[in-house]
C-alpha cells in the first residue's frame, strides 16, 4: 500500500494545536537544567531524561494513532519511515530521515538536521557527556513498546556536541506477543 508519508506528516502537523516554540524550548531547557542540578551526574541525567521520554511515549502513541490515520505498518522498515516522517513531524514539527539500515534490517538511524529543542543551547565543558535531547530516545522506546516492539534507542551523534547532525540509533530487540493474563485464583 503506497502511501505518501510526507503528506500524512504535514496533514497531521497542521491539525495539531501549536505552542510558541520559545515556551517549549525554555520549558524543556529548565527541565534539563533542574535535572542537572538535582543529579549532578551526567549519565544519571541522561537516564532520567530517557525515563521521562518513555512515560511520554507510552501515552503519545495513542494520540498519534488517533490523529495521524496512518494504517498498520507491514515491517520494521515501514515503522521507521512512519516515525521519521509522520511521528516526529507531528509532535516535534521537524521530520527526520531514516538511514544506515543494518544487514538484518533490525537497526536503523534517525537523522535530524534540526531540532527546536536545541535552540539557544550550548553545552558547557563540564557537561560534555550530556545528551540534551535524550528524552526523544525514551519517547521512541515507549511508543514502540506499546506497539509490541521492544527497542533500544540511543543518541550516537548530537549537533550540540559539535557533530554535523543529530542521529539516534534504534535497534529492535524483540517483537512482543500478546500475553494472556495469569489467572490468579
Amino acid at each position, binding site marked *: 500500500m503506497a502511501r505518501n508519508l510526507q503528506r500524512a506528516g504535514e496533514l497531521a502537523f497542521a491539525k495539531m494545536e501549536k505552542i510558541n516554540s520559545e515556551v517549549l524550548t525554555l520549558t524543556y531547557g529548565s527541565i534539563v537544567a533542574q535535572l542537572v542540578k538535582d543529579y549532578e551526574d551526567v549519565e544519571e541525567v541522561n537516564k532520567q531524561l530517557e525515563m521521562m521520554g518513555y*512515560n511520554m511515549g*507510552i*501515552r*503519545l*502513541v*495513542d*494520540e498519534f*494513532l*488517533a*490523529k495521524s490515520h496512518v494504517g*498498520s505498518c507491514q515491517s520494521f522498515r515501514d515503522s521507521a519511515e512512519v516515525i521519521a516522517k509522520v511521528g516526529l513531524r507531528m509532535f516535534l514539527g521537524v521530520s527526520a530521515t531514516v538511514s544506515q539500515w543494518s544487514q538484518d534490517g533490525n537497526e536503523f538511524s534517525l537523522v535530524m538536521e534540526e531540532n527546536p529543542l536545541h535552540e539557544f543551547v550550548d553545552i558547557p565543558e563540564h557537561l560534555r557527556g550530556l545528551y540534551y535531547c535524550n528524552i526523544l530516545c525514551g519517547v521512541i522506546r515507549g511508543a514502540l513498546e*506499546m*506497539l*509490541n516492539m521492544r527497542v533500544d534507542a540511543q543518541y550516537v551523534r548530537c549537533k550540540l556536541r559539535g557533530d554535523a547532525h543529530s542521529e539516534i540509533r534504534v535497534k529492535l530487540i524483540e517483537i512482543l506477543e*500478546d*500475553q*494472556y*493474563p495469569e489467572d490468579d485464583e
Partner: protein
Amino acid sequence: MIFNLYMFNREGKCLFYKEWNRPRKAYKKPEEDQKLVYGMLFSIKSIVQKLSPKAPSHGGAPRFLGFRTDVYKLHYMETQTGLRFALLTDAAADDMHDELRHIHAHYYVDFVAKNPLQSMSDSITSDAFVNHVNKYITSLNSFK
C-alpha cells in the same frame, strides 16, 4: 439500543465498564463478567486469525470485528496499542466502529492518555472521561 461498554487494556485489565441497559445480570461480581468477556475476546481473536483462509501477507490477516446473535450484537475494536473496546447493542443497530473510534480518539486520548495523573494500567477514574462517554453514548441515535 445500547446495552453496555467494556474497555480493556493490553494486559486484560478492565479499564472502564458502563451499563446503560442490562436488565439481566448474569454475574455476581462485575469483575467476573469482565474477565469472562476479556477471555472470550482474546480467544476469538486468536481463533479468527488461525481460521483465515488467506495467508497474512496476501491481505488475509483478519481483524475480529464483532459477532451477532438474534438478540444482540457485540462490536469489537482494538487499537494497535492493544486497547480493546467491546460495545453491546441490540441486533438491529448499525455498525458502531466509527463511534468506538470516536471514543478512543477524543475521550480516551484527551482524558486518559494525556492525563499524567491517570495511570494507564488502572481503571479510569477521570470524571471528564466518564461524563463525556456517557453524554456521547446517550446522544447517539442508536441509544434508544
